[in-house]
């Protein structure tokens, strides 16, 4: 069945659905077996649904395996991701932080992902300072990471959300300058333009609002 999460907010809240798309696999009595969060290719999606119906790779089965596999970074990352998908942020946070402690040199290559997840969870919980700091750690510690650009934008987004518009503006301007050809450069420019207008209105600093001179 299909539900518009913005309309049927009670059901979305009941199942703790906080990102979209989310597809729940439920028993016939409505109890959740597990969920698929995000977009997947059809065969991968079906494989996950089949696994859940057969009791494989569920969050419950993974959590049960933690006592034996909990020191394996790959397992920890996957378990944390699953908790994140279930919007069980505290459980996810504990595992991501354990992964950080376990692999400070990022030999697993999963620590930068974990930091980004910590940033996104903090942002969803409206803790914009923590979110920004986690994203900043990616930039400081792992500048060669695949997540570097996302982390860069995440820093700007969280400055903006916490009301530090001037700092946010600087980040988006820097982004658009550093990566002018990047697919997210238009987004950064748009953010910068909006922020420039807002700052112009609130602190009455004359600005050229017509030219995209960033």
């Amino acid at each position, binding site marked *: *069945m299909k539900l518009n*999460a913005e309309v049927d907010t009670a059901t979305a809240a009941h199942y703790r659905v906080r990102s979209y*798309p989310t597809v*729940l696999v439920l*028993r016939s009595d409505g109890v959740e077996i597990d969920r698929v969060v995000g977009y997947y290719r059809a065969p991968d999606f079906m494989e996950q649904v089949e696994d859940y119906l057969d009791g494989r790779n569920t969050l419950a089965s993974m959590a049960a395996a933690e006592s034996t596999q909990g020191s394996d970074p790959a397992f920890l990352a996957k378990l944390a991701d699953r908790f994140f998908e279930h919007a069980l942020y505290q459980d996810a946070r504990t595992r991501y932080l354990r992964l950080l402690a376990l692999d400070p040199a990022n030999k697993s290559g999963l620590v930068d992902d974990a930091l980004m997840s910590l940033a996104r969870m903090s942002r969803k919980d409206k803790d914009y300072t923590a979110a920004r700091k986690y994203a900043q750690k990616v930039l400081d510690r792992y500048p060669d990471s695949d997540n570097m650009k996302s982390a860069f934008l995440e820093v700007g987004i969280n400055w903006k959300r916490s009301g530090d518009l001037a700092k946010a503006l600087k980040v988006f301007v820097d982004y658009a300058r550093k990566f002018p050809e990047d697919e997210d450069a238009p987004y950064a420019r748009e953010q910068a333009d909006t922020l420039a207008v807002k700052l112009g209105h609130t602190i009455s600093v004359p600005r050229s609002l017509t030219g995209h001179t960033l």
Partner: protein
Amino acid sequence: MVGAMAFTLLTGGCATAKKEAPATIAWNTAMDAALADAGKNGRPILLDFYTDW
């Protein structure tokens, strides 16, 4: 098996499974009705939360 499962899961109430996938899925959009149907037939539910963003 996968296709058939999706079919019986998603069409909810169609008794005869066909080999071809249906062109469109007859999605249920009311939770109460889906639960009643699933309970009656002992079938799991696939619940898709979407937004119009």
